[in-house]
């Protein structure tokens, strides 16, 4: 029954030697060249992600890791996670942390970009100094801010004491009411240069003649900003905010270093929650489920962005 692969009945030549069009050959070569990349992505991206999905629907604890059986539990891990008040607490904190960080990073970044868009002495030097904040590893900046926000020895409290009454000095990271503000503060400092840099590039793409023409027509600085800069900066702003959202929603290191999620649970954002489920409580199934839920927000934002880009492409 088995047919030979290289059968030549009815005079057909073996498929391998069939002449192919240049387009097909190009396409094939294209696949071939992208194969290493695809294999790489499959190994480092798809495999862990799928493994995570698998884990999230099984009951996996430390014991089950070593040869034991990990029974399939369906959506139980998701149910447990969604029933956990700590999870929702973490979601709320993550949203506040992200919103707060984005708001200040973006406005301060925008203001600095406007400043650096015009020439002045030491512009380049100052700009590169600002970039240091972005280049520092988060662990380093986290540690620095932990020191600076300390009540006794902290630089910020010394500053507050110097300009006002002693009562201004405050245990930022010790008071559950202000700890989140403290980590947002540090994260804003880390994020401002990145925002500034992208927005500055965006500002340079605006044709200066538009501003000149508007000035000739009698528009003042505010009007020029409101009716020329802001609308033209919208695409860049959306990109910057979206990148910021994706980065900020999963921030872990800086918070971990500054507060470890405390005091009490005042800074236990979603990433720390997932970390603790995994590496403190060793509940891998639940951790995987929570991790995938954590992925949801950046994923939705990304999907929205891609759709929006495609829409723009069609319109153009």
């Amino acid at each position, binding site marked *: 029954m088995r047919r030979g692969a290289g059968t030549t009945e009815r005079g057909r030549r073996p498929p391998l030697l069939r002449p192919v069009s240049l387009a097909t050959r190009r396409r094939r070569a294209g696949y071939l060249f992208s194969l290493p990349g695809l294999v790489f992505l499959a190994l480092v991206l798809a495999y862990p992600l799928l493994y995570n999905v698998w884990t999230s629907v099984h009951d996996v*604890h*430390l*014991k089950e*890791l*070593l*040869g*034991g059986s990990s029974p399939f539990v369906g959506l139980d891990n998701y149910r447990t996670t969604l029933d956990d008040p700590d999870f929702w607490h973490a979601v709320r904190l993550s949203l506040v942390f992200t919103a707060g960080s984005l708001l200040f990073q973006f406005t301060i970044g925008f203001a600095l970009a406007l400043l650096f868009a015009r020439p002045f002495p030491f512009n380049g030097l100052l700009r590169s100094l600002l970039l240091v904040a972005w280049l520092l590893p988060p662990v380093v900046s986290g540690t620095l801010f932990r020191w600076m926000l*300390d*009540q*006794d020895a902290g630089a910020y409290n010394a500053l507050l004491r110097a300009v006002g009454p002693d009562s201004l000095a405050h*245990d930022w*990271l*010790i*008071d*559950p009411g202000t700890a989140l503000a403290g980590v947002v503060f540090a994260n804003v400092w880390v994020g401002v240069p990145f925002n500034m840099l992208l927005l500055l590039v965006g500002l340079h793409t605006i044709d200066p003649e538009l501003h000149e023409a508007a000035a000739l027509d009698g528009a003042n600085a505010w009007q020029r900003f409101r009716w020329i800069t802001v609308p033209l900066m919208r695409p860049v702003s959306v990109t910057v905010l979206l990148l910021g959202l994706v980065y900020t929603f999963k921030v872990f290191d800086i918070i971990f270093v500054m*507060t*470890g*999620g*405390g*005091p*009490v*649970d005042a800074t236990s954002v979603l990433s720390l929650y997932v970390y*603790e489920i995994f*590496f*403190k*409580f*060793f509940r891998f199934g639940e951790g995987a489920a929570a991790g995938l839920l954590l992925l949801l927000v950046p994923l939705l934002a990304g999907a929205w962005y891609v759709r929006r880009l495609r829409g723009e492409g069609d319109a153009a």
Partner: protein
Amino acid sequence: MSHPVDRRGFLRAAGAGAAGLGLGSALAGCGSDKQSGTVTLTWWDYFTLDNFRPAFDRLIKDIEAQVPGVRIERRTFPFADLERQITLGAVSGDLPDIAIVDNVSMNSLAGSGLLADLTERVEDWGQADQYYKGPWDGCQVGGKNLGIPNNSNCLALYYNLRMLDSAGVRPPTTWDQLADTAQRLTSGERFGLAMSAIRTEEGVFQFLPFLWQAGGDLDTFATYGATALAFLDDLVAKGSLSEQCVGWTQQDVNTRFVNGRAAMQINGPWQLPTIKKTDVEYGVVALPRDKESATCLGGENWVVMASSDHQDKAWEVLEYTQRPSVLVPFLVALGNLPARKDLADTGTWASDPALRLFLSQLPVARPRQYGPGYADASQAVAEAEQSVLTGTASPSAVAKTTATKLDKALEQR
């Protein structure tokens, strides 16, 4: 123009890559095993600091010289990473033969099936009764012996001699005295007492003695937890203990003590080398008691991994390290205390009054042995303490809600 890659160059590069992945060393290890009959044992621990190195270098040299046919390959991890690394190793199949783990790790590791059962070997060995009860019990899980204590430590109260002298007070021995002394030693930028209440196991390690001293335990937290929490809350309210202790590690606490910003501190013997380098005149006394004397047991245990192909050799190594002639110099160099009673009168701890005091506390030092749910219990206790000390909740209310969480956590068996 072109870069001809010769075969040897390619193999060399591939070999380097493999070595980078740890394959090379494994292959090399197998090779030498065949030839000389030596077994290479991998060994993990978390003693990363430079001042621990001489002790470990010497111990490993001795083992390789004295235990026939053994070569040791040691890898160290940061303290917080070792347990996680063992967990990850369980997934990837990359586990050591032996390891030195924190005694509190027995709670999570014991139920995992990761640790080899040493019960029969220990019985043949017959030295179980030479160990202090706390450390030894800490290695017993479900009637099995899953480890050997390597060294022990516990908490005690350090005090600044000069500060107590000038205030005309004596080191406290009871809770009332502690509160009173701490208040009298508080002035300006100086707190009477410093301790760690950070949201990690370190903070819980420091809190549990108060719970035990009050006469309670994790299963009676609603009552005795409230007592212990209220006592600490009072210290903070009177300004004798800084509210900032909720962010301090034990290292931070010691820094305050050494800088003269705390007149007394709760800490362990591992701080002694640092303190001795300063000119602080200090004394050490047992933790003040309430209903009972109690302190928390720290220290490390030797464990053999169940996945090891060389469990006999690994046990031989463990047994060798427990010989007094090996253990005493090792612990002295490490600055640690023995878990063996029969070594009480040798080593630096026999002559150094501070170490002697810590050693004298080992009989009342309790292991944190609560089973696989301990991580949840620990977190609940840490958060209870933090919410009281930061003034977000009252001791009795928190103790009640925490007791519910603890009951649930300790049910996991």
